[in-house]
């Protein structure tokens, strides 16, 4: 009997664990280690952040779901990986620390035959002074990264709305809180959902809204922009985003590295070297992501974290990390099996794997500050990666160690993104975008690097309905309710 340990129970880890259990669970053991007691459909946090959904709508308890299908669940956070075992035994194991009420802080070793690292990111608020301390959100801004943060954001937003109703003008600043952020999409959704709520509340004219982001052009979204179809026209996402911002009367600052946040004020440096500050009454700034800080220890007790992990804390996989400068980047640099090159029984998926390089053009200010989006790994690619890794491990266990691994490279994978711009059954809007492939392949598709036949986008009410249906579909799937295996990633 083999044991597969999955670190993390987010989109990627949960997908991997549940499919593994479905495919080999009757004969083998699947263990999930995650510090959270609840599963969260993160894309819908945006709606929690404006009070259109509750925390309960976007989360559910993991324990009963795992119990139902027989997955062993540890509510704990992983501290370190011992891929060679220790002096007493050759069996590899992970050290975990309980986060469960009643046993908080107790550590335990869990042995594994295969390990999937799907821990997701550490929300690195501490990277920007004033944005927060370590992984904790600071007092000056709000966040929609977790359901709890989103609930707090909604509370603060409604205080603003009340103040505006009483006649006070308010300034909103939404975007990225550091030069090396990803997830512009979430901030993009949030600013337009707020705009929509303010209009509904009849106070839009009392609000000055501004977008701040590390993208070098509006509509980069961390994927170097895309060419989309909108209202029958083929346009660049830049033109599309600019017209949307102008139409909704939202101003923007781009190419910005937010380097300090104070009460009511954000300081930033731009790509052209100018420095500036922006005042706000309400601000949601996305923190940069880092690895969760797992340690790796060799058999003799030596720290081998550098062997297993990239400097940013994400796990190394079968990517080409030596690609060098922008002009040498190739689609083939991107990993396809997500297997660690040193330890073949360790895999990483979702945000936890170390990407070889960004997708957008890397840029820095004259002072040398790197300012540019890091590669996004949204729900759809994360789910696909999780399932692919589960497939590979299933084959390794059932067909033997020589079984060929399954592949899913982000350079051969499309992604659908539905960015909500306001919730409402009849007046909601969302921008639906599809890109193929996520990572541009300049050899296969000379020019834009993408297949423009499969890269498109549209904005409207239908997009909102899709987003809403997706919410229910994925909540249904993640709770392993009837027919869950039929729902795609």
């Amino acid at each position, binding site marked *: 009997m083999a044991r597969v340990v999955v670190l993390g129970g987010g989109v990627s880890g949960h997908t991997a664990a549940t499919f593994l259990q479905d495919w080999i669970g009757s004969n083998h053991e699947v263990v999930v280690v995650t510090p959270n007691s609840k599963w969260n459909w993160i894309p819908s946090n945006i709606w929690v952040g404006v009070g259109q959904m509750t925390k309960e709508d976007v989360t559910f308890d993991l324990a009963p779901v795992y119990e139902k299908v027989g997955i062993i669940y540890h509510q704990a956070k992983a501290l370190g990986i011992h891929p060679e075992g220790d002096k007493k035994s050759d069996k590899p194991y992970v050290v975990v620390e309980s986060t469960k009420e009643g046993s908080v802080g107790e550590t335990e070793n869990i042995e594994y035959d295969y390990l999937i690292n799907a821990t997701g990111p550490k929300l690195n608020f501490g990277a920007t002074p004033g944005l927060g301390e370590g992984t904790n959100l600071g007092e000056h801004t709000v966040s929609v990264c977790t359901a709890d943060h989103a609930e707090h954001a909604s509370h603060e937003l409604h205080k603003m709305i009340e103040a505006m109703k009483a006649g006070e003008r308010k300034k909103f600043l939404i975007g990225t809180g550091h030069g090396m952020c990803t997830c512009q999409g979430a901030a993009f959704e949030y600013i337009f959902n707020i705009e929509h709520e303010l209009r509904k509340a009849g106070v839009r004219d009392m609000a000055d809204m501004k977008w701040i982001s590390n993208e070098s*052009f509006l509509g980069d979204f961390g994927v170097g*922009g895309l*060419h989309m179809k909108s209202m029958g026209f083929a346009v*660049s996402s830049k*033109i599309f985003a600019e017209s949307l911002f102008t139409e909704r009367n939202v101003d923007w600052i781009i190419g910005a590295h937010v380097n300090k946040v104070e009460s009511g004020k954000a300081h930033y440096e*731009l790509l052209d070297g100018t420095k500036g500050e922006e005042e706000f009454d309400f601000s949601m700034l996305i923190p940069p992501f880092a690895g969760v800080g797992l340690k790796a220890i060799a058999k003799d007790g030596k720290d081998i974290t550098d062997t297993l992990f990239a400097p940013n804390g994400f796990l190394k996989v079968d990517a080409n990390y030596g690609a060098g400068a922008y002009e040498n980047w190739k689609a083939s640099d991107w990993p396809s099996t997500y297997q660690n090159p040193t330890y073949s029984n360790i895999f990483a998926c979702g945000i936890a794997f170390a990407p070889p390089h960004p997708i957008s053009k890397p840029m820095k200010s004259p002072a040398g500050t790197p300012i540019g989006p890091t590669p996004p790994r949204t729900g759809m690619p994360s789910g696909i990666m999780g399932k692919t890794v589960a497939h590979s491990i299933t084959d390794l266990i059932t067909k033997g160690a020589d079984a060929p691994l399954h592949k899913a490279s982000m350079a051969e994978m499309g992604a659908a993104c539905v960015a909500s711009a306001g919730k409402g059954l009849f007046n909601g809007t969302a921008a639906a975008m599809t890109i193929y492939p996520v990572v541009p392949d300049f050899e296969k598709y000379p020019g834009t690097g993408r297949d*423009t*036949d499969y890269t498109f986008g549209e904005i409207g009410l239908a997009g909102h309905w899709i987003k809403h249906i997706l919410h229910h579909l994925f909540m249904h799937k993640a709770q392993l309710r009837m027919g869950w295996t039929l729902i795609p990633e």
Partner: protein
Amino acid sequence: MVKDIVTYPTPPSAEYSTDVRVFDENLFALIDDLKDTIEANGLEALTAFQIKNHFNVVVVKKSDGSFLELINPRLISTKGKITTREKTAYFPGLSAEVTRYDKISVIYQDRDGNDLSLKAEGDFSILLQRKIDYTFGSSFLNKLSKEEKANFELQLEYGAEAATAQTCPTTFKRDYFKKGVMAITVAMILLFIASFFVESSLWMTQVYLYLAALVVNVGYFFYGYYEGKKYSSCTSCQIGNIIGTFVISLVKASVVLGVSYFFM
């Protein structure tokens, strides 16, 4: 080499705004072509896009006759608004009132790949903004106010749509099926109203009409699916859309039938 400038109504290519990654002879040759074409046509500036090249390159002829080469330019910060009458080589002989930023800051690279930035205002700022728009595949059409765009379109022989890269038709044959279902549904409603004034039972006629609507609707579904496959880049051809329309038409006809069942 002097190249042909893409002009209206040739639609611009859908492939554009690819950042230059390799700074080599190919790039230098492209810059030379741009300069030759500017000289030959007496222009102020050109983007690679205007001579059918997808790279993100702009060349401007300065007042002293020298050239400014901007590789991968990006508009970083802006200040103030200014409205002027602009001309562009894409629409020969035409002009339009366009509102742009007065002062701008642009980052770009030179032919050796060095990162540089510049500040511009007034006419130079307007020129750069127009050119940077082209590197993202857009003419000033996207920047016009609603009224100005309507005025401008009147001057265009083939309409504004010809000036945007089109890959998706706006009318479909499958819509004839949709209209058919609609017509039958309307007939069913009329028959339902008529049933209150006519002695004999019209119920069976209603059932036949419903079946006809169903058959035409199924025809819509399969033809729509077949037609959609021809235009893979077209979102309105997605199967989800076709299923949606199919279901909506079916529900409408079914509601009429359901109501008829109780009252006819």
